[in-house]
């Protein structure tokens, strides 16, 4: 079972090759170049370094969102092109879930936070107990205040990670009432290897999609749709917003 994993949901571009229980290669870049310039050359570097015959890849794992709209699309279109050419399925993995796998086994709540702008974070709340992954709150876009309120209510120690940490560190520290910590640099950004490990599990559970049906999960409407909803409010505006 061989998986190519791709995450370009945030500022980091990350790709990895996994085979069964091993990470064969992982390449991450957190630099000012655009994903459009880095992502495919990074895949090519992995191919060359590991003498990879691309036709032996079984599936392509892709960070499905949330994240930067443009970043998600570069990743998605890359995964779709690979899937189309190689005739292989995609494994969509929630970006926030993939981040949580960076700290697999943490004895408490795991809470990745990605800066979602507009005073919100993309987040989720997870727990790793007895070697299994539990979703306590599925990935969503909420305000930091609301998130801290939920965590205070849960009353357990929590580990934060993700690019929202530097942005909201002080706000969190001033309002949280449970023991908390921020993950160090080596585990606080998107890593395709973590995404790939989660993808292996999803693949075994039969969660794949065809390259044609795949689309990013933005968790947010475009600004134009949002403004048009505000002008003619519909009853389900809130739920359509994914919030």
């Amino acid at each position, binding site marked *: 079972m061989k998986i190519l994993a791709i995450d370009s949901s945030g500022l980091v571009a990350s790709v990895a090759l996994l085979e069964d229980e091993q990470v064969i290669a992982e390449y991450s870049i957190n630099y000012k170049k655009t994903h*459009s310039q880095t992502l495919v050359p990074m895949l090519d570097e992995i191919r060359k370094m590991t003498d990879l015959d691309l036709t032996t890849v079984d599936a392509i794992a892709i960070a499905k969102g949330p994240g930067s709209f443009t970043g998600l699309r570069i990743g998605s279109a890359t995964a779709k092109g690979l*899937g189309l050419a190689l005739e292989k399925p995609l494994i969509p993995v929630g970006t926030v879930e993939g981040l949580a796998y960076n700290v697999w086994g943490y004895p408490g709540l795991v809470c990745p936070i990605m800066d979602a702008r507009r005073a919100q974070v993309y987040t989720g709340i997870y727990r790793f107990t007895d070697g299994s992954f539990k979703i306590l709150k599925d990935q969503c876009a909420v305000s930091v205040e609301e998130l801290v309120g939920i965590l205070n209510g849960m009353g357990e120690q929590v580990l934060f990670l993700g690019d929202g940490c530097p942005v909201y560190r002080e706000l969190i520290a001033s309002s949280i009432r449970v023991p908390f910590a921020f993950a160090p640099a080596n585990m606080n950004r998107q890593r395709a290897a973590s995404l790939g490990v989660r993808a292996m599990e999803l693949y075994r559970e039969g969660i794949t999609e065809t390259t044609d049906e795949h689309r990013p999960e933005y968790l947010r409407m475009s600004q134009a749709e949002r403004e048009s909803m505000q002008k003619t409010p519909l009853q389900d505006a809130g739920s359509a917003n994914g919030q």
Partner: protein
Amino acid sequence: MQDKLILGIESSCDETAAAVVKGGRTVLSNVISSQIDIHTLYGGVVPEIASRKHTERINQVIRHALSDAHVTLSDIDAIAVTYGPGLVGALLVGVAEAKAISFATGIDLVGVHHIEGHISANYIEHADLEPPFLSLVVSGGHTHLVNVTGFGEYEILGRTRDDAAGEAFDKVARAIGLGYPGGPKIDKVAKEGDPDAIAFPRAHVNASAYDFSFSGLKSAVLNYLNSCEMKGEQIVVADVAASFQKAVVDVLVENSMLACREHGAKKFALAGGVASNSALRKAMQEACDREGIGFYMPSPIFCTDNAAMIAVAGYYEYEKGVRSGLDLNAVPNLPLGTR
């Protein structure tokens, strides 16, 4: 080389398109998935929505183009993809898709300029057309008068100083209540109107005889509408549409013919979305006939944004040895004739 197969991919604005072209001239398939119905709701193209729709549709469109052409990726010699100019988010979808396919299959990749594609659309139905010739590219985003000196070689003679011709059509259409997209709607309504009813200005740019300016004309139309309203005069929409259209067409034809005379051009090719405009097609044909210049224009299906034209342009670049790397990026304001 004659039988080389090029897969073209285009996603620079609101059409997701793929096509397969043989030998640079024979279109085996030309699939266009238009998003116009969605954008019409917003009165114009919404970049974020366009980018989302491209991502949803691109694989089906490519598959469809391959199956219509009765080929598979293994038959394709090169992938030509639009990498600019256009909406950056929209361009990135096609570029990322094309690079991934190129990487996975080893098929050569050629980045194509969108305007070069529009000009090259003329090669599809005119087997005799070869450079040198002059071309006028008119669309929603572009108004360029170009000297095509060779395959893939361009010298820009003139361009718009403000609004593109198609943009002016959209804005005026909105002002007279015709809605989006303005080009086809004005074209249709103008057929019922008198093109000489209202004397709108023919704008010329003093510094350069080949440049265009349409914002003054647009303002003149808006001023006319306002003054009618103030005076309580009835606005005849068909007359406004016809008079505005004639003012645009006159300037496009006049500048084009001036350039043809001064460059001794024997051939002239119209291109771009606005090249579908029936008044422009007719006026340009008549002007070229008068001047004794060979006139070329694509069928409307090849005037609109499509991938066949990108595959054709890509073919000639490929023949010249042009190849793009896996780091090819979208360039939203890519100048014509550069790499």
